């Protein structure tokens, strides 16, 4: 009974995290933000979904293979993310900062500093 509830919770939260990652992958404005959204949610959603299936199957040979799939995914996802970020940085994709807000905040701080100096 408790194991069934735990399995349902794992499957539900895994599905929610996968949906969040897909919406982030589709909606975010920059390449590096999209990489962040996809990789971070994948690292959490994949073990949650597979742990939900493991709790449903019980202690068999299939659950050992599912643990192996979890290990492979947990090792492979950050590796792929790091290599893809490095390849994009070498290939000429620049992280596009929001320069207008930075300039406004900088000019504000500069005027504040100059006002303090005048006082």
């Amino acid at each position: 009974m408790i194991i069934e509830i735990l399995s349902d919770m794992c499957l539900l939260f895994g599905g929610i995290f996968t949906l969040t990652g897909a919406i982030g992958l589709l909606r975010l404005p920059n390449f590096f933000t999209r990489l962040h959204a996809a990789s971070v949610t994948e690292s959490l959603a994949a073990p949650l979904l597979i742990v939900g299936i493991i709790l449903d199957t019980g202690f068999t040979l299939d659950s050992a293979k599912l643990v192996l799939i979890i290990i492979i995914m947990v090792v492979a996802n950050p590796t792929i993310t790091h290599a893809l970020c490095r390849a994009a940085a070498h290939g000429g994709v620049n992280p596009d900062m929001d320069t207008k807000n930075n300039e406004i905040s900088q000019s504000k701080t500069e005027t504040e500093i100059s006002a303090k100096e005048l006082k």
Partner: protein
Amino acid sequence: MIAAAIIALLITLALTLIRAFLGPNIYDQILAVNSFGTKTVLLIVVGGHALGWFSYVDIALMYALVNFVGTLAVMRFFEQYNPQGEQS
């Protein structure tokens, strides 16, 4: 809850495929294809358990390894690639 997880995974696959076709960069497309492969492994595991397939775990295990190696190979191929022909 298995049905809800399968529906979430199918919607995720559709949105990822939209990004793969729409991506302005080659790296966006590689990222979308890698994410599509990972979600396919998850869909094989969850759907195979729900439908009672025979030895679905082996297929998912092999697909995870092939996805990892294939993405790394494509990425090494496109690491120095520049569409404008400029050397960065």
